[in-house]
């Protein structure tokens, strides 16, 4: 019996008649519709059943008269989606943050974009939309129109909605409020953290996301499936291959499209090259954050040959646009096999040097060891993913548990470190680069012959699919719902950073100011992935808005 059948059986026996409908669509995906109000019972019984279970995402979908909430629960490689509906007039549902604290940001996102009120949520505030976004305007609802916000005046009281906090908490207080971001040298993308510090000690932090929210989920509904592949790639430049693979696999699952195995291997190769250059970039940035500039320069130098290889295969250095629905865009010429392999060999040798630096260098150890501790139990509660979870000793890897592309045929190790600190999270990445070079070598040696793509119709049948891949930063989830046309009805993206950033508050509290960059970088946050629309600068009087039409026009131009 597969994991998903087991989970569904368990749910049936536990909940009985509270379940309205059960569907097992693929061997690792199940969709369970519960009677309203009983989603909590289903989720808690799944969480109790398996200690590896966690929440992957919450998707809200506007079905017209009601809003459907999909709780994507991962349990042992399978994704069980618990569905529950709420009426659109009074969208209220009980929170699940008491069952699993890691759902806090997901619920806030749904609240923000669809207006579902989660009763009992400890901090139900805006997550991605600007603070002066008009009340009652929920962009992901189907009846929402961009004109709605163009016509309404944002909360005007003369006071900008986001202000800097006072420098101190009071005349006698030694607590200083330090704001990091939206623009700050330690952040490579606009994001804002408001720290309370006492001397050099960090007492608390409040993150604010949403500065680069681009409305991609909404925009995706207005493009055809095959166009959306290029759109989702632009969610994040660094892990574009992960997004494209994830979206394509979701659509292929809906349309029941079998892709040729050569395409599977080629996807794997590009996906792993993607991981290598992302990790190298991160290691370099980590060096910079730690004030170790040579490490930064060296890592980025060694990243260049990897980008050259990606260019050889796909024609582009970063934005590969290589993966399409039904396969890959172009074939791999046999003449470049040697070039790829020699690059991998050199890189593997070079990784010995980096491992040495991280393991031996006393100053690096001083700065990263015992810093930003995330205990395994807490990591599970917060449902963190990827290298952050693996750095806390949790062996989870979508490539192994929920194999996609060609990962079920390629042997590889899942790297875990038990140290639970920033150092462990960085070391996981160092080792993963070596592992990726092995995967690429294996894939090239066992590359099947045959076609590299199949023709896919523009229209897809009605259906829904959840697809997960292991992006460089962790598990990436796409949920695609089709209504039988050439356009998706709903596209939901849950990026690994949204899953991981929730742990930042936990691990930075009580550490020193100097540790903030070291801790933050060990999560490898990518905010452009996490935010996806609308440009409103609330810091001063300047405000501008881009309608979705503008975004589309810009997109077609570029």
């Amino acid at each position, binding site marked *: 019996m597969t994991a998903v059948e087991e989970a569904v059986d368990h749910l049936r026996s536990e909940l009985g008649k509270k379940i309205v409908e059960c569907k097992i669509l693929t061997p690792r995906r199940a969709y369970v519709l519960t009677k309203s109000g009983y989603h909590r019972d289903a989720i808690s019984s799944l969480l109790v059943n398996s200690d590896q279970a966690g929440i992957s995402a919450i998707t809200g979908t506007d079905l017209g008269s009601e809003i459907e909430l999909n709780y994507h629960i991962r349990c042992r490689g399978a994704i069980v989606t618990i569905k529950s509906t709420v009426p659109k007039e009074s969208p209220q549902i009980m929170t699940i943050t008491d069952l699993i604290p890691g759902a806090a940001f997901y619920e806030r996102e749904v609240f923000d974009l669809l207006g579902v009120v989660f009763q009992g949520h400890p901090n139900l505030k805006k997550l991605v939309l600007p603070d002066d976004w008009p009340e009652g305007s929920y962009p992901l609802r189907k009846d929402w129109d961009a004109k709605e916000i163009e016509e309404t005046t944002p909360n005007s009281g003369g006071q900008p909605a986001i202000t800097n906090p006072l420098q101190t908490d009071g005349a006698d207080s030694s607590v200083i409020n*330090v704001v990091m971001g939206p623009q700050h040298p330690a952040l490579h993308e606009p994001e804002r953290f408001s720290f309370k510090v006492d001397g050099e000690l960090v007492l608390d932090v409040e993150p604010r996301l949403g500065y680069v929210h681009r409305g991609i989920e909404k925009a995706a509904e207005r493009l055809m499936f095959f166009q959306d592949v290029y759109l989702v790639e632009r969610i994040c430049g660094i892990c574009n291959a992960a997004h494209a693979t994830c979206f394509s696999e979701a659509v292929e699952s809906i349309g029941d499209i079998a892709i040729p195995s050569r395409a599977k291997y080629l996807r794997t190769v590009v996906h792993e090259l993607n991981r290598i250059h992302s990790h190298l970039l991160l290691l370099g940035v980590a060096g910079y954050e730690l*004030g170790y*500039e040579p490490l930064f320069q*060296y890592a980025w130098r060694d990243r260049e040959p990897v980008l050259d290889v990606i260019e050889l295969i796909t024609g582009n250095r970063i934005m590969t646009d290589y993966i399409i629905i039904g396969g890959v865009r172009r074939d791999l010429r046999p003449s470049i096999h040697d070039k790829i392999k020699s690059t991998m060999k050199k890189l593997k040798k070079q990784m010995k040097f980096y491992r040495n630096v991280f393991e031996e*260098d006393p100053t690096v150890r001083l700065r990263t060891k015992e810093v930003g501790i995330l205990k395994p139990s807490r990591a599970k509660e917060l449902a963190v993913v990827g290298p952050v979870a693996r750095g806390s000793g949790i062996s989870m890897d979508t490539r192994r548990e929920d194999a996609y592309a060609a990962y079920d045929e390629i042997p590889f190790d899942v790297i875990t470190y038990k140290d639970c600190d920033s150092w462990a999270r960085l070391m996981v990445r160092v080792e993963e680069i070596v592992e990726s070079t092995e995967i690429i070598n294996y894939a090239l040696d066992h590359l099947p012959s045959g076609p590299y793509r199949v023709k896919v119709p523009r229209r897809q049948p009605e259906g829904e699919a959840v697809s997960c891949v292991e992006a460089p930063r962790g598990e990436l989830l796409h949920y695609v719902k089709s209504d039988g046309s050439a356009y998706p009805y709903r596209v939901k993206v849950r990026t690994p950073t949204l899953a991981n950033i929730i742990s930042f508050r936990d691990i930075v509290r009580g550490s020193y100011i100097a540790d903030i960059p070291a801790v933050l970088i060990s999560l490898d946050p990518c905010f452009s992935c996490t935010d996806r629309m609308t440009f409103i600068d609330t810091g001063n009087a300047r405000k501008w808005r881009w309608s979705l039409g503008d975004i589309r026009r810009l997109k077609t131009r570029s």
Partner: protein
Amino acid sequence: MPIDLGFFLRVLVFPGFIFLLALSLFCDWFERKLRARMQNRMGPSYAGPMGLLQPIADYVKLLTKEDIVPVQATRLLFTAAPVFALSLLVFTFCYIPIDGSNIILNSCFEGDLILVLVLITIAEFTVFLSGWASTNPYSGIGATRVLTQFLGYDIPLIVFALGPAFLSGSLSITTIAQKQAIPFIVLTPWTFILLVITLQAELGKDPFDIPHAETEIVAGYLTEFSGRRLAFIEIAKDVQVVLGAALVTVLFLGGPYGPVLFGPSALWYTFWFIVKMLAVIFLLEYVGSVAARLRIDQVVRANWRLMIPISLLSLALTIICAPLLSPLVG
């Protein structure tokens, strides 16, 4: 009183103000080029031959930039601190024999080593003031870090500097330099190494660039400075590096004194001085390149638990060895 042209030339041109500025700019270039090459980069390459004029270009650019004073800043302090820091450091050079004698001839006296160390301390304090006057959280934290770090390493710096004084039996910098027929680096290498590390902290270089750790607190105490004021601070930092290297040179490497092959001795002395100084700068950059930035608490702990006991031990060792080594000093 007749105007002494030679005196003015010495103070203003060589080896005085203009020479010092040129030397500082050259050392700035040298540092940047070294750091770049150690990091596998090109470094300055466009302005002038091998990018030699890059520092000048940078300062000219800074001078043309808008000069902003934050509304809440203490204006007087904010303006005075950069100028004060630069003039203090330049003044300190009066007691360093660059071409074999002091800038103002015969201005050296028994005890000028102490004066120089005091001036360096005050210059460091003006840096703290400049950050404090900006009233910006980053500057505030940066300034606090300057002071915290400085409390730790200033004492070891002074103790290490006293080693050569004991060896040569003099507190005059010129005398100490003259008495090094065998440079003190050979006699007491341990003090030299420790002094270089302490100097690294004094100059705020990696792994001690905590007061202006850009990924944590933007530019630290410099955050609010721009235009002319920033130019002043930057050039003061350059002069500070030269001064630090010069101090090590005179205390441990025999100062400007070296073989005179032909022609005027002043020229050769200047040459040797610059060569030795560049060697020290190379060492400083090398140490900076192989280490990550430490945390302020780690630095303070290391200073009080390690550096201060070690510095006292090293001084004791030097005092014990001094009678044995005295035949070699001269």
